[in-house]
């Protein structure tokens, strides 16, 4: 299975890199677009486990500024995600756990678990996708728009439209990818009504190797601007990234509950 994945990734990478030489002259073909999207999913998903600490700074127009420190635990093979709030003291012990596509929030003061939406993790502008890898291939159809300039970067602009019958919060996603490694620099999510929901900037990509030796690219800094509640914004910086195997019991409710006892 791993060899198959590796071959697929390598093939996608070859297609992506070969396409890079053509971009200056011609628009992308649909095959190239599909390959880029597939590669985006692949290179942001780890074959093994992943652990990191996120420092977030949120500006909320109603609640003011907050800084949070969150431990992130991921096991992409099983679609598992655990977020444990470490700081500030008032949030310490709170957390989120994803089990079978359901996202649960834990409140240690009451010991209660609540099923929540993917949005506004810990009251920030971040949603679950900011902690996970991309999941575009099965949910969206991509289309090339144009080569554009994003600040000093040459970027390829793609539009992803939700596939028929797929349940997703975003009906449309616009991506701006730098043309060397095709990393997403800017992302805009649109609601079903066509309204712009949020803009995300992903910066400072860093290469990592996961447990299988597969090379990953992780944005060390993300800036998420809420485009509905204008003024709400969160900046997230990742540190202490570790791809060593995690303990089996981490992705359980009991583990999170034990952290606040």
């Amino acid at each position, binding site marked *: 299975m791993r060899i198959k994945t590796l071959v697929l990734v390598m093939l996608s990478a070859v297609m992506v890199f070969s396409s890079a030489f053509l971009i200056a002259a011609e628009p992308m073909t649909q095959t190239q677009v599909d390959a880029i999207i597939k590669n985006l999913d692949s290179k942001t998903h780890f074959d093994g486990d992943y652990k990191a600490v996120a420092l977030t700074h949120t500006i909320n*127009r*109603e609640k003011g500024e907050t800084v949070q420190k969150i431990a992130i635990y991921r096991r992409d093979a099983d679609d598992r995600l655990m977020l444990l709030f470490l700081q500030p003291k008032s949030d310490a012990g709170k957390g989120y756990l994803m089990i079978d596509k*359901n996202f649960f929030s834990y409140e240690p003061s009451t010991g209660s678990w609540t*099923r929540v*939406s993917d*949005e506004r993790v810990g009251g920030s502008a971040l949603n679950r996708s900011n902690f996970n890898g991309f999941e575009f291939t099965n949910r969206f159809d991509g289309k090339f728009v144009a080569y554009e300039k994003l600040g000093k970067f040459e970027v390829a602009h793609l539009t992803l439209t939700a596939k028929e019958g797929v*349940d*997703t*919060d975003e009906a449309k996603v616009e991506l701006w990818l730098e043309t060397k490694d095709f990393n997403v620099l800017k992302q805009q999510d649109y*609601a*079903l*009504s066509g*309204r712009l*929901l949020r803009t995300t900037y992903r910066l400072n990509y860093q290469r990592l190797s996961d447990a299988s030796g597969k090379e990953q690219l992780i944005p060390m800094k993300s800036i998420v601007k809420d485009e*509905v*509640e*204008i003024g709400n914004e969160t900046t997230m910086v990742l540190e202490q990234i570790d791809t060593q195997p995690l303990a089996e019991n981490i992705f359980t409710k009991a583990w999170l509950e034990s952290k606040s006892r």
Partner: protein
Amino acid sequence: MIYFTIAFRNLLQAKRRTLLLGTAIGMVTFLQVLLQSVGNGYMENLEEGTTALTSGHVNVLGLYKMSHGKMTPFMRDGDKILELIKQSAPEKIEKVYLRNGGPGRLIGDFNSRVALVQGIDYDEEVGLQQTLVLAKESSYVEGGRDEAFGDISKVKEPNSIVLFSSQAKTLGVKVGDEIAYRAFSMVGINVTTMHVVAVVEDVGAISSFFTFMSRTTVAEAMNLSEDVSGNILVYLKDKYQSQEVMSKIRDTLTENGYSLTEYEGLSIVKRWGTVERQPWLGQKFDTVTWQDNVKDAEVIVKSIDALSFVLLTILSVIIGIGIINTCWISVQERSNEIGCIRAIGMSSRAVLGLFMLESLMLGVLFSTLGALLAWAVVLAVSHAEIPIHSQALSLVLFTNKLNLSLFWQDMVSAIVIFSTITGIAALFPALRASRIEPIQAINAAH
């Protein structure tokens, strides 16, 4: 009859004493009736608010679970259910309305708030049309004009929303502005731009949580298919038959193969977590009456009742002591008179009756006057439509205008209670008076 004449003349003879005691009795009765009318007015506002805005007299809510632990307020085949409900008690049901909706977030330029959106068919819902009144701009905009703007009926137009005054104030919007509506639906979240077509006066605390759009707008915002709705509001000819009609509705739905949640006599808001955790999947229906929905708020009425009980008990004791004292003095002063009437043949029982009658007449007369005065005040206040300027108070009282409500039963019971208290208070001095021997009374007078 002679006893009535004697008792009445005795009251007239001691004018000052009668007037002072009577005023005290009248004022206590007045207070009791007025407090009762405050409680009644509150319950009236609450009932009108909840029944017209959210629940009807009987509410049938659709609950749908796609997976364990995730319940949504959706109902399939709403039109079919509506017809079944109509047929369940046609002689008792006046109107039935289908609504859709669910929780969402209203987002203004500076603030946001969570609200339960109700998708309505405006032309159908006559009761709601009567309840919603356009609010003056000054009530929700700092320095706004003293005129009401907007058109509630425009809620029928696509992407239109009607806000309550307190919501508009929090969001910082006025008629004609736009807000974002973040709808939480079964398939995720959708954000739609809404036009504020009207801002209406608050109808108590409930106004903070509810808002209105057309059913079509809600369906589009929540990405619901045409056959999906939320709840059915049943209005009855006699709202006090809600339990009976609800039982019939439950029987009809069960007979037609629909599953229902267990009836617990509590609003679904209080039971949501418990029902969500129950191990069933698919569609179920939940039924509640308007009484179930206002149960929590009855605490406020009970508090008013408890306060008035304590207050009136203290006042009744004071009045009772006053009456005992006055009657005692009266017995002392009139011992000569008592001796004479006993000497010419009046029995001790008749003397007891005379004193008791005197006291009862005093009680009935002045408590009636007190109750009538309270009634006049209630009428005047209701007619004057006195506005409540405090937002907190208006939210608690479920109205923007002071509303007092009085039933004749309240007046009669107050009169009976205070007349009885007066009578009981006079019993001891009257007994003493009846036991005086004629010779003893005449000697004591000399």
